């Protein structure tokens, strides 16, 4: 059922950006060029539809890097299936955010 979910282009773009690894909100904004008012609500909806899941980074890691902890988002199995469908629907998706670029920012 999840694989048949029709995503908007924005949601697909965010899903594609998350695909390569753990990502957090501001990182996604920089990657996609979308404003905060679009990225975070999209993340909530994707999480509600169980296409992604979120996880807080361990405090010790954040402390070691002297910054606040990040909330990372990861694709679920249903999210990966949906992304496959979205790539067929939006063929330019992989060109907009190639997996290599995503990895280099992660």
């Amino acid at each position, binding site marked *: 059922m999840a694989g048949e979910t029709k995503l908007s282009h924005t949601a697909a773009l965010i899903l594609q950006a998350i695909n390569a690894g753990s990502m*957090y*909100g*501001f*990182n996604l904004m*920089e990657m996609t060029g979308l*404003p*905060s*008012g*679009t*990225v*975070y*609500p999209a993340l*909530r*909806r994707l999480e*509600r539809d169980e296409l992604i899941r979120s996880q807080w980074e361990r405090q010790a890691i954040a402390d070691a890097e002297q*910054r*606040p*902890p*990040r*909330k990372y988002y990861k694709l679920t199995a249903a999210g990966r299936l949906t992304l496959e469908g979205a790539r067929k629907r939006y063929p330019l998706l992989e060109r907009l955010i190639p997996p290599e670029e995503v990895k280099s920012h992660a």
Partner: protein
Amino acid sequence: MMRSLLKNFFYGTQRGLLGSAALMVARERRSDWLKEWSGELWHVRYETARRAEPWLSVEAERVRFCLGAFADAWCLRGSFSIRIKLRHRPALDCILWLACALCVCAAVARSLPGVRAEEDSTRYRVRPGLILIQDAGSSSLPIAAVSPEEFRDWQTTRQRFFDGIAYYRNALERVAVEGGGTEMMQVARVSPNFFAVLGTPLLLREKQATEAGAAPEAVLSYEMWVRDFGANPAAVGHVLRIGDETLRIAGVAPSSSLPLPGEPAMWVLGTSAYRGHDGDTDGFVIAHLSHRGQVAFAAHGDHIPVAVGGDDPDQAMLVGVALADAGEGPGALGGFAIFLAILALPAVVSVSLGESNFSAFRPSWKRQCVRWLFLVAKMGLVISIAFYASMALAYGFTSAYSPTAEFAQFATGFAFSLLGLRWALFDQRHRCPVCLRHVTNPTRVGLASQTFLGWNGTEMFCAGGHTLLHVPALPTSWFAVPRWVYLDSSWGFLFTP
């Protein structure tokens, strides 16, 4: 300096925006949501600070980022909380909008360092009965006149009028600041019991007890803590250097709450107060009056002569004067501005809400109560918005108390309250007394007559079909204020939805 204040203002605004957006999120998710956005704001600030862009555009980008929090909060509310299905209620809409504006103003104001400092200055007061012992010959500015030897003598002598005394001496000293440089600052050297005698709790205090042989303690002023340490609570416990001396920061004093001579950047606690600096050894003594001392103080009016050694009290060289209190704070000043605005209101607007003697029909007492409650709620919200907005404007550009900020708060508080109350009355006069909708569709009716007896004015109606409002073009003795005409059910066909 100006840029630093503006940056503080922007940072406060950004935190305030996140705080007010968080109010829209369901309570059980709020802390997690705010933690994520605060963390993300840190990343935004960190990344944007590294860009070679004008700082104003960087700050604007950060504010834009924070504005996105409202869309996110709204999304969460819509998805995860219970949607409250409301009928279109114009009065409720108005109250909700005003409440939202109040939340934003309050969140922005309370996140500004200057506002927090002002609130702290009223919360952290010196205890009553404190006096400052100074030179008896000084007329306006207090002059230090107590030598360390005299103070030590007093400490070992049984005091009749005081139940606590502390020493206090100001000096200009070279302090190592962040970034490796040094800066000349006003430093107060005080006896170890200084804060105990003052009775003022510190804003921040080191948790662990001082170990034997540890470096002497320094208490930062609120202004220095904000300016040099970015209001970071972790500054407590750090060490700093004054000349060759190493000091440990033991706490932060609340802003402007210590009405003492000089404006020291920090207080150094310890016996160094008794050593002279550049030949200047005299200081002040802070004393707390015992019951007997209070009686003697009252007998002399506003001071008490202090005899040194066997001096005759009538020819005393020292005098104790009451420490001036930090004033009533922003709440009292704001309240006074609002009180004046209420007094001035009849001068700028007619306070009448309109007559209704054109028809025998009257709304039920319940509807009349709702109408008055709506007006009171609206005025209360407008006044609160004016209070917080004036605080934000006055203290947005300063991190501590200043007379200019106090004046700005008073002036803007008065102006905002007056304009707000004027709007509230004007708005009320254009709302149907039955359903509190705005009357609409103004229509010019009648013609101007030379005798003023002909009807000439504007007519508006309530879209719910309850009332018509007649507003005279030229107020006359027989038609001075707007009049409401209540419509009976025979008019219903005109307003059928």
